[in-house]
């Protein structure tokens, strides 16, 4: 389609420009990370413990720490968030309390992550006496991504045609069986989208784990969920600002690994989602 007239040209040009402006920074970040960081990537870098005050060796515990944090966070937030998302529209009705809860959830999504970090420190680490640990970090991150998961799940559940619910109920299925057998399976792809967004946030945030889970330097894997862990974003912050004389390519390499890890986790969730979508519609 060829644009016609000056107005069309102008609109076309502006929209095209906006795409360039949106894509350019992403491409630039990736380009800089890859060009400056790739030389640090090696098998040892990915699988070895850090040595010599993090100036040499690998970042294995940080990679595993972030993976464990993300897995734990999703394991807590996904069931909880989906259950809340089911309860709100399907059971709670449209009362004032429901609207209030809804407003609270939406607002929680806007709370700065450092506030979650401080809350986690107060509530989980100190009050519940869990201590600075993997568990406390997962709980804190789970709180942070709950609004995202609830909102996405709710939208996915609402997108399921009412006719499915009616058909199931009219066949003598109970409300819960209807939700479990008909509504949830149809909403699963949308719920996974929420989980994907949540994973991206959980993997990249530093502030929530700063006081709750992250170890400055811990050249081993956590022994239990009550152990501290290293995490990629925090590790990156440390080697970039706290420890002198870290080779530049190690810093960029660590950032590259973090980005790659998030993309990897997201990609697997996206593949799972498309698999479920295919299976639902044959």
């Amino acid at each position: 389609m060829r644009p016609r007239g000056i107005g069309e040209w102008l609109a076309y040009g502006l929209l095209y420009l906006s795409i360039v402006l949106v894509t350019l920074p992403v491409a630039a970040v990736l380009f800089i990370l890859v060009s400056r960081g790739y030389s640090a990537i090696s098998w040892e870098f990915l699988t070895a413990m850090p040595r010599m005050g993090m100036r040499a060796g690998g970042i294995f515990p940080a990679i595993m720490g972030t993976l464990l944090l993300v897995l734990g966070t999703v394991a807590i937030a996904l069931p909880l968030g989906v259950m809340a998302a089911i309860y709100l529209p399907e059971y709670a009705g449209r009362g004032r309390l429901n609207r209030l809860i809804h407003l609270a959830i939406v607002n929680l999504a806007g709370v700065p992550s450092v506030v979650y970090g401080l809350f986690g420190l107060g509530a989980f680490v100190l009050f519940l006496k869990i201590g600075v640990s993997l568990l406390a970090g997962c709980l804190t991150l789970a709180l942070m991504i709950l609004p995202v998961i609830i909102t996405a799940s709710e939208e996915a559940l609402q997108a399921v045609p009412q006719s499915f619910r009616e058909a199931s109920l009219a066949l003598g299925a109970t409300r819960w069986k209807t939700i479990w057998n008909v509504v949830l399976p149809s909403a699963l792809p949308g719920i996974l989208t929420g989980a994907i967004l949540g994973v991206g946030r959980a993997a990249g945030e530093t502030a929530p784990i700063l006081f709750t889970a992250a170890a400055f330097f811990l050249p081993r894997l956590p022994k239990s969920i009550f152990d501290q862990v290293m995490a990629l974003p925090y590790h990156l912050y440390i080697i970039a600002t706290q420890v002198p004389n870290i080779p530049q390519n190690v810093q960029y390499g660590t950032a590259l690994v973090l980005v790659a890890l998030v993309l990897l986790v997201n990609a697997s969730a996206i593949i799972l989602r498309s698999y479920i979508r295919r299976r639902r519609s044959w």
Partner: protein
Amino acid sequence: MEKTACIIDVARLNFYYGKFQALKNISLQLESKKITAFIGPSGCGKSTFLRTLNRMNDLIAGARVEGKVLIDGRDIYAQDMDVVELRRRVGMVFQRPNPFPMSIFDNITYAPRMQGQHKGLDDLVERTLVRAALWDEVRDKLKSSALSLSGGQQQRLCIARALAADPGILLMDEPCSALDPVSTLRIEELMQDLKNEYTIIIVTHNMQQAARVSDYTGFFLSGELIEFGDSNKIFTKPDDKRTEDYITGRFG
């Protein structure tokens, strides 16, 4: 009217959506193993009435029922009535075919599986699909998606799905309005066939259809049941002027 078993007895039924009264003082008795049709212009309350019989209106916020609906002598709005049990007894087919996004097999076995039946499903599926005049068309693709069927086939699948729950009564809410004439004819033939075993209540905006398939017909207007009786009589010499105006096409 000859004396036969009355399966549904409605007495002074009022129904409200919030402040709006959708049904006004409906009283009637429906006979077992007959087809009863309800006709009337859009918004006259005929679908609302149908949905009071399996309490599907319970799902609507602000809906309220007064009066009595007895099915097999039990008040279905009584405190101790189990809605799930009621809906097993009173099956429903909707305006638009609404098969689940599952295989044909899983659609048919949905209700039995919900009731905890996991044996003899193969037999049940064959029996039910034969009953719904769909078996020959789908016997080789029971595992494929119900959504791959044509609209008419989907609607017969929905009828089969309802039959698999083993209901005594089948409610049909304009079951052919989304179908082409050939599919409509097949559903009408199926209804005649099912009449021997099931009590069928159909809501339709198609008067020819009501005249063709039903033994009894009720005419709704603005939430009132204007006239109810033998279909032959309603469509040839109705008692009420408004019924006559409607069936002769003077309004509606």
